[in-house]
């Protein structure tokens, strides 16, 4: 059941009705975040295989980005844009939190989204034909793992909010479970390169969280989404060279 809580929170995929939106189930759902990433990765890999029969690589990659935005309801991209607007503005931490709450997109958010999507598109185009599916799965799973790491290990910035409910239920064991799942999947799919990608995701998460904590009273749901997008982009860029450097 906690898997469906994670699925409901992270995607627009259908879930059974009546799932809890508070309480310990949210903490347990954190352990399932990387599994949701694997599922999204598998859906993308399947769409990739089908669309590649008809369309050239460059167009398929745009459609994969669109599909991912649809499957996630644009949740993380939305958080990324709000984070760009908040973090790059020269305001006080409290004012930045208020900018996060504004549903309108500012210039930093537009520039951020355009740049991020261009980078993700270019990175998708550079994934090698062999290992493409595995890399999609690992990048999406580790990006969701990164959110678990950030939720468990770093302070939360608001007195209330959905992120706060997660934070209150998040125990160290949720991180251990998520890490075991993500690490095992990455190692099975990409061997040593997969484990190196986990280490890279961890380092990126630590750096990003430190950066945010220098500008905000704590992390928020929007910054978790931004982290997911950034780690996804980083891994799509880094996985091909990692797989070349660390074969097997």
């Amino acid at each position, binding site marked *: 059941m906690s898997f469906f809580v994670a699925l409901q929170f992270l995607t627009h995929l259908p879930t059974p009705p009546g799932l809890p939106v508070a309480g310990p189930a949210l903490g347990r759902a954190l352990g399932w975040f990387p599994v949701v990433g694997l599922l999204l990765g598998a859906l993308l890999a399947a769409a990739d295989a089908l669309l590649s029969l*008809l*369309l*050239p*690589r*460059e*167009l398929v*990659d*745009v*459609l994969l*980005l*669109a599909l991912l*935005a649809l499957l996630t309801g*644009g949740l993380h*991209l*939305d958080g990324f*844009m*709000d984070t760009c607007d908040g973090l790059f503005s020269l305001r006080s931490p409290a004012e930045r939190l208020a900018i996060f709450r504004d*549903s*309108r*997109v500012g210039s930093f*958010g*537009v520039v951020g*989204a*355009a740049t991020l*999507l*261009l980078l993700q*598109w270019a990175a998708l185009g550079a994934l090698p034909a062999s290992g493409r599916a595995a890399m999609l799965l690992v990048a999406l799973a580790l990006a969701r793992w990164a959110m678990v790491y950030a939720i468990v290990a770093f302070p939360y910035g608001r007195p209330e909010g959905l992120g706060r409910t997660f934070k209150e239920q998040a125990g160290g064991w949720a991180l251990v479970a998520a890490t075991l799942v993500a690490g095992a999947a990455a190692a099975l799919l990409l061997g040593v390169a997969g484990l190196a990608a986990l280490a890279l995701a961890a380092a990126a998460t630590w750096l990003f969280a430190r950066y945010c904590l220098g500008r905000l009273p704590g992390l928020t749901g929007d910054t978790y989404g931004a982290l997911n997008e950034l780690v996804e982009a980083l891994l799509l860029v880094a996985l091909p060279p990692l797989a070349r450097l660390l074969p097997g």
Partner: protein
Amino acid sequence: MRGFATALQFLTRLPAPYPHATSAAQLGAALVYFPAVGALIGALLVALDAALGRLLAPAVVDALLVATLVVVSGALHLDGLVDSCDAVCTRATPEARLALMHDSRAHAPGTIVACLVVLAKFAALSTLPDAVRAPALLVAPLLGRWAIVVAYWAYPYARTTPGASLALKAQATAPRTAAATLFALVVLALALGPAGLVVLAGAGAAVHLLASGFRARLPGLTGDTYGAIAELVETLALALVPLVVSGW
């Protein structure tokens, strides 16, 4: 000539040496010429492509052609796409969404879709085979403007406030739509042969799917959704032409 000039003024930022249309009847007479304006934009792309192709790298030419589409239309249709996506992606009643569409500021869904559509056009242009490049550049803007005429004629309009779209809706008669379709058909057949008919049918199917999608979430179509349909059909056409021609 008068009708063509009015269509040019309505759909583009290109100079038209006539006074602006003042009556609904003048605006309505322009509907027949919407696909012709599209063909003119397409011809402009073909000419630019030929001229710039001698000077610049292919990726630069493709980016400039995408930019030309934006500038020539004054981003009219892209703006409609952004507003439409923001409205239909919001959790609200159809009537509340209609009010939201008047908000000129961009939100997350519209920003993401605008980035992806621009990227998709670039990706489609960069993968156009040389054999269909000129015909595809010619017919894609045409199909986008033809789609507007069909959408005006075939589906209910949501607003009752006086404006260009309300006037155009009243003026979008079956004979005018048929004349616009006949023009589109002739240009497509000349440019692509029998495959052109398949492309036109594909564009028509796309108009129906998109209009149905909008009508499920809104009380009817609006000026913004006509723009969204034009943008998406134009993008689809760039991908569809090589697909149909190679399948033929």
